[in-house]
């Protein structure tokens, strides 16, 4: 037998479930304990925000909301690895990344609260808004990367997509473009094991999602997505390659969605309590906390103090969100085109008259 080509997928993990270091080659950023503590604090902040956003929805003060519970390490690692000039094309639950890029929690709430101004956010002006049509954002990142390549700018575009999204053509098209054009592109598959109710095993017969990148001819790796250190190592490598003209990378971040898909979902219909209980053992915050405590870099007192601070900060954001006055009716017309066509001017006048009546 002759082999035409053969491939393997590396799996990367630094911290085990209990927060014990598995490898000796600790990367430079992880030796900076203060930076790790900052990342940990952001993960806690994101989780506090998430819980309070769900509570807001339950009390009728927010529309349908997509939780990020359990995916904090992946999201915070992405946010810390990108620079402001890079472009982030998220799907719709990557708040941790966006907070680091300057998006305010009140803006996230505004979007899920049914107000487009949440997308006119305080993060980098070139970042994409949340993308609801699954996997379409991967191509926006690829197109952005193509623009950077044409203009010879040392910038990187990064898209996130779920495990379900890897079944879509746009996902394959994006990584294929990344390979064919050698684009400064990183696609992170946030494999949280479920696409609403469909488990990862039913999504594809492929053993890993990372190996889909092999078909596109790009570097591909599977990472423990609940391990902040491993995620940063993989991202730093991918982003450096992209920035220096060495092409695109696919990172599969293996994590678990501890929450329902959205507040409109009830995950108890399709997965067992035992499974969720086991997943809580692997969750990212607990493991990083244990590691930091083992280094004497974080204490129970600091934990208590910081969580109280998170509540205070998120409450202030919620107050700001709730105090935001709704947009004028005219807003739905005013951004449809750069200049309002005559046709729409008439409709706008009708809508304003109807609103007055």
């Amino acid at each position, binding site marked *: 037998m002759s082999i035409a080509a053969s491939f393997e997928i590396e799996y990367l993990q630094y911290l085990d479930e209990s927060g014990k270091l598995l490898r000796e080659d600790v990367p430079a950023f992880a030796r900076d304990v203060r930076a790790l503590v900052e990342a940990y604090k952001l993960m806690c902040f994101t989780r506090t925000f998430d819980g309070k956003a769900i509570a807001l929805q339950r009390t009728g003060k927010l529309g349908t909301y997509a939780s990020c519970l359990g995916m904090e390490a992946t999201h915070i690692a992405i946010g810390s690895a990108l620079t402001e000039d890079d*472009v982030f*094309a998220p799907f719709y639950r990557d708040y941790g990344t966006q907070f680091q890029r300057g998006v305010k929690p009140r803006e996230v709430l505004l979007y899920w609260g049914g107000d*487009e*101004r949440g*997308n*006119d*956010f305080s993060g980098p*002006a*070139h970042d*994409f*808004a949340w*993308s*609801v*049509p699954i996997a*379409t954002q*991967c*191509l*926006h*990142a*690829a*197109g*952005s*990367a*193509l*623009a*950077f*390549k*044409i203009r010879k700018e040392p910038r990187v*575009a990064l898209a996130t997509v779920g495990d379900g999204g890897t079944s879509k*053509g*746009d996902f394959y*098209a*994006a990584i*294929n*473009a990344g390979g*064919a054009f050698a684009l400064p592109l990183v696609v992170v598959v946030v494999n949280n094991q479920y696409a609403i109710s469909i488990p990862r095993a039913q999504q594809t017969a492929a053993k890993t999602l990372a190996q889909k990148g092999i078909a596109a001819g790009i570097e591909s790796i599977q990472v423990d997505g609940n391990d902040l250190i491993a995620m940063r190592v993989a991202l730093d490598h991918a982003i450096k390659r992209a920035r220096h003209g060495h092409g695109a990378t696919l990172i599969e971040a293996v994590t678990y969605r501890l929450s329902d898909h959205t507040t409109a979902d009830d995950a108890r219909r399709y997965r067992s309590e035992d499974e969720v209980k086991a997943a809580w053992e692997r969750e990212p915050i607990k493991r990083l906390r244990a590691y930091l405590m083992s280094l004497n870099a974080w204490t129970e007192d600091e934990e208590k103090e910081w969580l109280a601070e998170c509540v205070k900060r998120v409450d202030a954001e919620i107050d700001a969100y709730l105090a935001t006055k709704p947009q004028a009716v005219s*807003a*739905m017309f005013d*951004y*449809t*085109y*750069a200049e309002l*066509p*005559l*046709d*729409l001017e008439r409709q706008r006048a009708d809508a304003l008259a109807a609103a007055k009546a």
Partner: protein
Amino acid sequence: MAQINLIEGITMALAHEMARDPSVVVLGEDVGINGGVFRATVGLQQKFGPERVIDTPLDEAMIAGLTVGLAVQGMKPVAEAQFEGFMYPMIDQIASHAARMRTRTRGRLTCPAVFRAPWGGGIHAPEHHSEAIEALFTNIAGLRVVLASSPGRAYGLLLAAIRDPDPVIFFEPKRIYRQYKEEVADDGEALPLDVCFVLRDGSDVTLVTWGAQVKETLEAADALAAEGISAEVIDVATLKPLDFDTIHESVKKTHRCVIVHEAPYTGGFGGEIAARLVEHALYDLYAPVERVAGYDVPMPLYQLEMSYLPTTARIVAAAKRALAAS
């Protein structure tokens, strides 16, 4: 001034705008060294290089999605679909993203992109190469939908489409790509994207059309003139946003209207124009509005395609019905 046909008007506009504005890039299948399947992009890669005239992998959804990304990040992409019938996989990106990027982000992000495609039947092409799908796009808020029907309008409207700050669907009636030549100056003068063009003045009946049917409609006007009937001919050109006022002004004068399009009758854009005439011009009309359209059948393969497409005789007959009714 050069004597050029319609497709040369497209090429001339692309070359002009690429020379003027370094952010303009062309992407699609076979647009580079091959110059496009209809030769719309011929010579551009040699002139502007493979980084600005980009041969893509064979995936229309990819082309559309890359185009959105390019446009949002400050480029002016002109994407080509080889045939309009290959645009269906692009519609998700166009409708879900290109058309709503500005409004979604309240103006923070915009999508100044052009999606070009050869359009319509009549060239004996295989299945899916002869569709008239403009009405799929006219119902999408945030787009402009343009059909060029002469060499000069192809040049001027494409310049305007590329310069427009919002996404434009730009259809080129392939049946008349090489129908005739006319003098067009490469002067960079764009045409407006919000007006209809009155191609012929008349007083008895208004014939409203777009795309390749401009040819049959002008022939019908000649035939009617031979019988002493004066027909006004309007090329709508930009279907969205619609310049209804020009159509209304004409109908105030002629009191009769025939709408001609090769897209299927039901849900075709002619229905929109007819509805507006009923809403705003009912008392100006002396006769019911007539529509001459494609039939509500899938575009037949080429042996029957000329029986599907509106003919000069059908347009003449419709005009006479309108005149007889009053």
